[in-house]
């Protein structure tokens, strides 16, 4: 029976070739490798629930009188979009559940994307050959935020309306073309009667289509490249160790879908999200305390709050330049562009054009890890600023102080975070070296014949040890003149960056070092100290240019 069916399909699709190719493909197991999959399943859940919602939602700003079930809004004029969202919530059985699943899944979608991005960044999984897939993922993150914002605006309630108004103000602040873009986008003056319909088209057609296409591409590249794996015994840059898609990984993937779906439905069953009936229909006059965007736009809203007073000027008495709008946009753009181009920048600095399939442990690349944490602090300062008012009330501070602290954090925080993270990474690397060289402290104290007390160390077995010593080591680039005896200024910059990247580094323990440490185990610890001071400032064997 199975044979007949599969034969029928294969004779019409050649699917046997696909199964042969894919069926036993191996995937490595690590929880952090599941984050992208969580994002994918969130997206599927959003598509499924979103389709249900489109059957009931009316993307129209035509004014109607609400006559639905929610008493405190009865008889009020509102847009058809708001009224139909209220109907979904109160008069469609299960409608509120689907709406809440959709919204919670959206919050988790972008959260899992960003956690996935952080995992890829900190493990160096963006290195060749995966740079383009990093960029694809990055674009999906931007599109996902676009999906989120357009969806947030659709109910046309007071909260989202004020959000749109902020977007309108932002757009108007763009030099030269801002006024026109706003005029065209809103189909006239804000708020107009067009914007909800237009955002709806973007939300359910253009953006999802792009996302689906990019998800497909992302997956194709994942299969072409095969997944990265963490270093470990038996794992090399030329193999992948794990479980085959059929059956183990297929089962785990399917199971993960149901688990993610189940968790989100459970949250939607228990916790309210975006109670638009509290906010009421959009009206340009009222506003609620605690008017914030959904979390993933928070960094943009926070950036707007962190601008000091007076950053706006008029050119030749004729044109207004709103730096209080442009400065946040620039600050965000710098961050976003840096995220997108980071793989290319790092490759230029290292000059390493090899394929990398072994994930870095973050501590083993201290500078990259420190840059990543600095970036998170920069983003985090803007993100936290979006809740400055709630921080003020909940931590009994004044909102002015909250803003000032966050302004300081935005500027100084990344540097402090960079420094601390790098030191922590180096310390962890030193700990790893110690472990490899001297093993675990066994807690057993032994008195030597000479009267000296030592603690017996339990050496690592070769598998544990390999996990700690298998990582890449780079030396800083030395500038050398080219064949005509000239030094390219760009090469000088690169050498400077390379020095910054690699001068504080700790090399992996070698077999020779371990052997020597065992030869002279009684002076082992002092030996390690010598190593640390003999190295280039921090530790590890010194490296001279060969």
């Amino acid at each position, binding site marked *: 029976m199975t044979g007949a069916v599969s034969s029928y399909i294969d004779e019409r699709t050649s699917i046997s070739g696909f199964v042969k190719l894919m069926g036993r493909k191996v995937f490595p197991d690590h929880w952090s490798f599941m984050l992208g999959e969580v994002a994918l399943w969130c997206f599927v859940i959003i598509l499924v629930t979103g389709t249900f919602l489109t059957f009931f939602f009316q993307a129209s700003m035509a004014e109607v009188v609400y006559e639905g079930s929610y008493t405190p809004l009865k008889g009020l004029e509102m847009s058809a979009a708001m009224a139909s969202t209220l109907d979904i919530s109160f008069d469609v059985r299960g409608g509120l559940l689907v709406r809440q699943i959709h919204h919670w899944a959206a919050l988790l979608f972008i959260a899992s994307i960003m956690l996935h991005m952080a995992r890829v960044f900190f493990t160096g999984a963006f290195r060749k050959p995966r740079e383009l897939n990093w960029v694809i993922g990055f674009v999906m993150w931007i599109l996902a935020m676009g999906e989120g914002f357009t969806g947030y605006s659709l109910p046309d309630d007071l*909260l989202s309306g004020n959000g749109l108004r902020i977007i309108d103000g932002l757009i108007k602040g763009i030099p030269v073309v801002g006024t026109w873009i706003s005029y065209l986008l809103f189909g006239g003056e804000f708020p107009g009667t067009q914007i909800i319909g237009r955002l709806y088209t973007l939300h359910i057609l253009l953006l999802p289509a792009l996302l689906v296409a990019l998800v497909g591409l992302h997956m194709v590249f994942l299969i072409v490249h095969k997944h990265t794996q963490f270093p470990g015994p038996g794992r090399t840059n030329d193999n992948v160790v794990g479980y085959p898609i059929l059956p183990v990984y297929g089962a785990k993937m399917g199971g993960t879908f149901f688990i993610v779906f189940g968790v989100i439905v459970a949250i939607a069953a228990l916790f309210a999200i975006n109670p638009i009936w509290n906010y009421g229909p959009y009206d340009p006059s*009222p506003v609620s305390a605690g008017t914030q965007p959904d979390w993933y736009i*928070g960094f943009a809203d926070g950036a707007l709050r962190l601008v000091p007073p007076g950053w706006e000027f008029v050119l030749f008495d004729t044109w207004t330049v709103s730096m209080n709008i442009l400065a946040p946009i620039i600050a965000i753009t710098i961050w976003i562009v840096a995220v997108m181009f980071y793989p290319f920048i790092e490759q230029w600095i290292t000059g390493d054009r090899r394929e990398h399939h072994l994930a870095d442990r973050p501590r083993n690349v201290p500078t990259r890890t420190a840059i990543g944490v600095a970036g998170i602090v920069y983003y985090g300062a803007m993100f936290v600023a979006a809740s400055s008012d709630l921080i003020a009330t909940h931590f009994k501070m004044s909102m002015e102080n909250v803003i000032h602290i966050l302004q300081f954090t935005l500027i100084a925080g990344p540097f402090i975070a960079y420094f601390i993270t790098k030191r922590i990474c180096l310390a962890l690397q030193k700990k790893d070296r110690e472990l490899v060289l001297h093993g675990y402290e066994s807690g057993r104290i032994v008195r030597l014949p000479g009267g000296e007390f030592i603690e017996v160390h339990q050496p690592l077995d070769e598998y544990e040890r390999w996990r700690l010593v298998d990582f890449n080591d780079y030396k800083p680039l030395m500038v050398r003149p080219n064949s005509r005896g000239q030094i390219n200024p760009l090469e000088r910059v690169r050498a400077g960056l390379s020095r910054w990247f690699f001068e504080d580094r700790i090399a992996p323990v070698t077999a020779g070092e371990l052997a020597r440490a065992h030869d002279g185990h009684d002076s082992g610890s002092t030996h390690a100290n010598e190593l640390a001071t003999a190295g280039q400032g921090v530790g590890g064997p010194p490296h001279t240019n060969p």
Partner: protein
Amino acid sequence: MSSPRRRPSRRRGRRSPLATIALIALGLVFTGSGYAAFSAVSAGDTAVAVSQESVERGQKLFAANCATCHGMSLEGTEAGPTLIGVGAASVDFQVGTGRMPLANTGPQAPEKPNLFSEEDVQAMADYVASVSPGPGLPEEEYLQTTGDATRGAELFRINCAMCHNVAGAGGALTEGKYAPSLKGTSAKHIYEAMVTGPQNMPVFSDANLTPEDKRDIITALKYQEETPAPGGFELGALGPVAEGLFAWIFGLGAIVALTVWITARAN
């Protein structure tokens, strides 16, 4: 559900002469100090017969608990404003919600457990009102939740939500001040706050929001408070910040914990 817009809409129909009637009943009372003038004596101002006994009792309580800051004859000191003209409503609100007497100085007086009995509060209110008239205690009929919730919710959004949040969850003001949460605040205290404008809250006199408007607002607030939140637990009704935090910590936290289990090796 919804029907196409009809003219005149229900809202237009509400543009009633009620407000005009209320204006006629209006009296303006300005204080000599001008520190904060409270106006619009409500209709209940003279309705309650005040016993001399209560006033005397109130005077003693006032001398013991309030006079240090507000002066023996309500004239105010450097530590506290004058209470001339604030009326019984103000005393009932400030003492009744525990805001007064002030425990220590800060950006604003926080709500505390009220240490006085109902009679004591009443006595102090009677005393302050006897020295100089001001807004009296609200009449019972305006404290009922029988008003128009739609109208009340709309008035609340326009006049109150910018500080107190659309769900009455409260919000931040400048320099450490805040608009408190309205959850659990009695109808009487809500009404008194609107009439007297405690601390930095503006006054919503009967000329601005008629007693019927105030009743509608109370109706809407009480509806919101007493109706179980349709979507489930509200996470403090604080909006997207609370939702985002929840999504990250509990939502993604739960999912990450499960992925750890999914990828852990079975023993």
